[in-house]
């Protein structure tokens, strides 16, 4: 199967580096000690860093890295961070190691120790110092071992979590040392768990029982692995093995329950996405009876607004995102207003024609975005405060971005609802929807209300687009992915009923996520669509029917 054509000796040292990294940590500290002892004078950090490209084989590289770590220089952190990011280069002209960042086809070079700018270089002038996952893991372990002694307890906690999976005796020793001096109770118990895991893997039968006591009620991944391995051992007491087994079962049971809770959250989260994308439509279609097939493209415009604002504020993605919420509302609302005045108002009372015309608009908007911004997806970054997850208990973590979107969707919904219920504008909208002639007779400027209502629905679609940038692609096809679902949500909920839209969105989201583990993602979606079609064929008015002017259409 493998024909021989050419060989690549360049990589040989690199593959052997992989081997080195597989060796346990205990080994390297010893080697470090030797290297330090044998070196005639203590070289500076810069000298060591510049030796990186010369380190052609595993031993040399390993020694060198440890050497750098042992030096304790303040800039070590910088070097390691740059190495981890793959941002260290050899400048082939000066044969020195520099930090580089790509800018178009050029590289901006900086001094890795001081951060001082060193000018530009072409692609051919630099060669990257390779880094891979093993090296990163190794660097992380080295850094975590140091961080165990850090002053900040959260840093120490993070370090313990990083090191938890390790089976290395050096880590074991470090944990024991730390346990003796750790002032924080929470961290002491984390360390106890870590030590118990080591104990279960050890050979001291007296420690087993205490370790099992410590692990009682725990369900972390590493705990389960330790229990699993322990109960498979042949050299331990059967009673202790049975106990470990029981603990394991209990932990797994707990996880199964948490998984169900998690699935519920996933359903709510999917529901919130559906709600956001459909709630604008619930206004334009539900209240006004306008079939706006360009609704998806209004969502897309909101997403592109977010991207554009991030381009304007490249260093502040979070602020750009927050600013995007009102901006997208006005951009999409403005486009909606133009659509209503320019096209839709001529087609009131002819819903099928509206459908075709707005579909034409959606094609034009898509192609416009494609021509203006390129057909490629645009990259929208997530602010720090939306990254990561909130771990409620081990095994149940809710991601911040999903939580934020869930909260945001409810907020938007509540705002819309109170707008419709408690303001003069809302009253006028409802009046026009219920009886246009009567509303006009009472002095409501129905045309103006129509235009503003449509703009409102469109603006809400734009807001949905802002939220979606945190979950999915920002590209010309963004809107198409949501349009059919949005219509189904509104129809299922009952046209003209905002609460219906809310219930429909969340029940569809939860149903989808409940089905998914059983039948897979594709079939879940198909089954749900079929169920929805059948339901609507029995009850075309949806869950919560309400009479409005859309009832006239036949």
């Amino acid at each position, binding site marked *: 199967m493998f024909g021989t054509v050419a060989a690549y000796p360049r990589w040989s040292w690199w593959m052997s580096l992989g081997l080195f990294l597989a060796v346990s940590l205990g080994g390297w500290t010893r080697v470090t000690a030797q290297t330090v002892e044998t070196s005639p004078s203590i070289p500076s950090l810069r000298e060591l860093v510049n030796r990186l490209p010369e380190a052609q084989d595993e031993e040399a590289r390993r020694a060198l890295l440890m050497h750098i770590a042992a030096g304790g220089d303040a800039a070590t952190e910088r070097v390691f961070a740059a190495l981890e990011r793959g941002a260290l280069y050899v400048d082939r002209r000066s044969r020195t190691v520099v930090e580089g960042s790509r800018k178009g086809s050029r590289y901006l070079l900086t001094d890795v120790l001081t951060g001082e700018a060193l000018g530009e270089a072409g692609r051919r002038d630099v060669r990257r110092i390779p880094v891979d996952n093993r090296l990163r893991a190794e660097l992380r372990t080295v850094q975590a071992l140091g961080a165990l002694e850090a002053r900040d307890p959260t840093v120490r906690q993070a370090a313990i979590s990083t090191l938890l999976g390790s089976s290395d005796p050096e880590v074991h020793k470090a944990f024991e040392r730390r346990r003796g001096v750790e002032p924080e109770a929470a961290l002491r118990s984390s360390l106890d768990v870590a030590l118990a895991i080591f104990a279960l893997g050890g050979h001291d039968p007296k420690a087993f029982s205490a370790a099992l006591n410590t692990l009682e009620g725990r369900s972390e991944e590493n705990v389960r692995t330790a229990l699993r391995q322990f109960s498979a051992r042949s050299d331990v007491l059967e009673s202790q093995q049975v106990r470990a087994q029981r603990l394991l079962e209990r932990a797994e049971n707990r996880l199964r329950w948490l998984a169900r809770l998690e699935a519920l959250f996933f359903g709510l989260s999917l529901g919130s996405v559906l709600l956001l994308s459909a709630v604008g439509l619930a206004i334009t279609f539900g209240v006004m009876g306008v079939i706006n097939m360009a609704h998806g493209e209004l969502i897309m415009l909101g997403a592109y607004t977010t991207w554009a604002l991030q381009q304007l504020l490249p260093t502040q993605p979070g602020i750009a995102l927050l600013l995007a919420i009102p901006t997208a509302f006005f951009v999409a609302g403005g486009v909606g207003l133009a659509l209503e005045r320019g096209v839709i108002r001529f087609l009131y009372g002819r819903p*099928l024609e509206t459908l075709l015309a707005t579909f034409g608009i959606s094609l034009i908007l*898509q192609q416009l975005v494609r021509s203006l911004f390129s057909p490629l997806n645009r990259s929208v970054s997530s602010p720090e405060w939306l990254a990561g997850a909130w771990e409620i208990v081990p095994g149940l973590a809710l991601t911040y971005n999903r939580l934020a979107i869930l909260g945001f969707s409810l907020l938007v919904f509540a705002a819309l609802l109170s707008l419709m219920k408690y303001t003069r504008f809302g009253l006028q909208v409802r009046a026009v929807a219920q009886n246009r002639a009567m509303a006009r007779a009472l002095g409501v400027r129905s045309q103006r209300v129509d235009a503003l209502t449509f703009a409102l629905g469109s603006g809400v679609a734009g807001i949905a687009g802002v939220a979606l940038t945190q979950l999915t692609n920002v590209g010309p096809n963004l809107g198409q992915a949501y349009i059919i679902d949005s219509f189904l949500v509104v129809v299922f909920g009952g046209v003209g009923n905002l609460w219906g839209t809310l219930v429909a969105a969340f029940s569809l989201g939860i149903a989808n996520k409940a089905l998914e583990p059983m039948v897979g993602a594709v079939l879940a979606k198909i089954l749900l669509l079929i169920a929805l079609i059948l339901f609507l*064929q029995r009850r075309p008015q949806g869950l919560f029917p309400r009479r409005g002017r859309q009832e006239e259409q*036949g």
Partner: protein
Amino acid sequence: MSSSPGNSPFLHRATIAFFLGLALWVPVANLLLPAESPLALSSYSVSLLGKYLCLALLALALDLLWGYAGLLSLGHGAFFALGGYAMGMYLMRQIGTRGVYGDADLPDFMVFLDWSELPWYWWGFDSFPFAMLMVLLVPGVLALVFGWLAFRSRVTGVYFSIMTQAMTYALMLAFFRNEMGFGGNNGLTDFKDLLGFDLHADSTRCALLVVTALTVLGSYMLCRRLLATRFGAVVTALRDQEGRVRFLGYSVASYKLVVFVLSAMLAGVAGALYVPQVGIINPGEFQPLNSIEIAIWVAVGGRGTLVGAMLGAFVIAAVETLLTAQFPEAWLFALGALFLLVTLFLPRGLLGLWERRGHG
């Protein structure tokens, strides 16, 4: 719409002449005339014309439903694709041992995805009459079930449109699944022959075109005759004043159902004729976009005219061929603008324009 332009005797005769002429001229121009002759038709043009004819039939089917019964289906692409799949399955079975694995029992895509036996729903597709029956039955039965459920609950207007769109969307997702046994995303392709005739021969291609032209003509005549009957009158009345028709004691649902099923079957036939001429059927045909495009053919040509629908399909397909070759960027702009302009300024389509000039 008292005097529909489709009923003008001149247009009617011109339509018949056009399809008959096409059926006579194409074989001559492609097979008999030397390639340099200005009247000669390359095999490329023959397959293009064949494709346009199938699309015209599809537009005719939708016009029957939308233009006369007032029901806009945004899922007609699904019936078209189902008819196409039925024909494609027959063509797959005709390959026999000529597939790349030389397997007599299973189509190629099943061999390399490790299917052990032919699924039951593929049984019988070795037989041409059975496959043709399925071309009519599968779309027909789907329309019957869907329509029965929908019309019973008086689903109409945009609700009907949205639900048919959801239907074709669900079918698209289903046919994309490889486990369905229809070749997944790749669909069915690499057909060899039809009733023993080599599909790659120019003569077969011309014969298919003749059959298609005659089928479109036949379907057109059928629709016309049907609409001229009492049945047709009720259906048209239904479009304009459903409440009154119901009040007069007609079973509205049954009338709608008959038209819907007939229209779905015609779409299925169009799909069945389309597949051997383009050489592939895949789930892309179920895309909601395709179905909406059919509606725009009908709207551009002039709905409720039969002839207009076919004209619209021909014109737009030809423009698409031209634009995608010359100005690929412009195609979606043009299509989008067409949707807008026709609905805003040409509510009765191209034929309406022609008629207005005729009267003025």
